[in-house]
C-alpha cells in the first residue's frame, strides 16, 4: 500500500496546512468534489480534536496524518500521543436536530462530521499513539 506522511506541531493555526494537503491529494484520486470537501473537513476535525483534547492545547506535541491508497480506496490515519478519547462510542452517536437555543449541541459535532465523511471510522487508544482511522472507498467506475 502506497502512502504519504504529513506531520504538524500541535497548534491549531497549522491545521489548515493538513487540510490543504489532504484536499490536494484527494483531488488526484477518484473521489467526488463533495467527498474531497468532507475528507478535508474530517482530517481538520480529527487534528483539532488531537490538539484540543488529546494534547489539551499544549503546543509541544505532534499530529501525524498518514494517507494510504490501495485498489479499493483511501485510508487516512490521524495520530497523536496525547490523552486518548474518553469515550470512543462518541464516534457512533448521531446528531440530534436542534430546534431551540437550548438544544444546540455543545460538542460532538466534530466526530459526527468525521463519521459523515467516511465509509467507516475506527479508533485505537494509546500504546503509544492514539490512532483514528478513516476509510473511504473509491466509487465503482470512478
Amino acid at each position, binding site marked *: 500500500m502506497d502512502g504519504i506522511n504529513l506531520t504538524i506541531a500541535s497548534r*491549531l493555526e497549522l491545521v489548515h496546512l493538513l487540510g490543504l494537503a489532504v484536499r490536494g491529494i484527494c483531488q488526484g484520486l477518484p473521489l467526488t468534489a463533495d467527498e474531497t*470537501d468532507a475528507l*478535508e473537513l474530517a482530517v481538520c476535525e480529527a487534528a*483539532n480534536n488531537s490538539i484540543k483534547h488529546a494534547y489539551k492545547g499544549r503546543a509541544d506535541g505532534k499530529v501525524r496524518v498518514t494517507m494510504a491508497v490501495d485498489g479499493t480506496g483511501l485510508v487516512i490515519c490521524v495520530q497523536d500521543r496525547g490523552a486518548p478519547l474518553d469515550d470512543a462510542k462518541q464516534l457512533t452517536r448521531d446528531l440530534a*436536530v*436542534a430546534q*431551540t437555543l437550548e438544544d*444546540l449541541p455543545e460538542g460532538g459535532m466534530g466526530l*459526527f*462530521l468525521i463519521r459523515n465523511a467516511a465509509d467507516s471510522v475506527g479508533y485505537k487508544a494509546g500504546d503509544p499513539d492514539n490512532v483514528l482511522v478513516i476509510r473511504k472507498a473509491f466509487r465503482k467506475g470512478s
Partner: protein
Amino acid sequence: MDFQNKVEQGVTVVNINGQRLDASAAQLFKSHMVDLIQQGGTLFVLNLEAVDFMDSSGLASLMSSMKTLGGRGEMAVCCLGEKVRKLFAITRLDRGVFRIFDTEAEAVSALSTAPRAG
C-alpha cells in the same frame, strides 16, 4: 481574520473577512460577537460570503454567539458559499436554528421588520 461592522436599518451586519472560520479563528470571532452584544446590539446579520471553509469549532462559535444573545434579539446568516451551506445542512442547523438568507439585503430586511424580542 478580521471583522467589519456596519449598521443598516437598526441591524448590525458583521462581515467576516477571512476564508476560514475554523478552530484557530473561532475564539476571536466569539470575542468579537460578545463585545458587540455587550455594547447593546440585539439584531445581527453575519455575512459569510468570504468564508470558504468552516469547521465544527466555527459553527460552535456561531452557536455560542446566539446563546450569548439569548432571547434578547435575533441573529441571521447570509451569503453562504456552497461548502458552508453544506455544513449547515449536514449538521442540521439549517432546520430552524439559524435563519439563512441568500443576500445581505434580504437578511437585513427580515430582521429589521421582525418583532423585537422581550
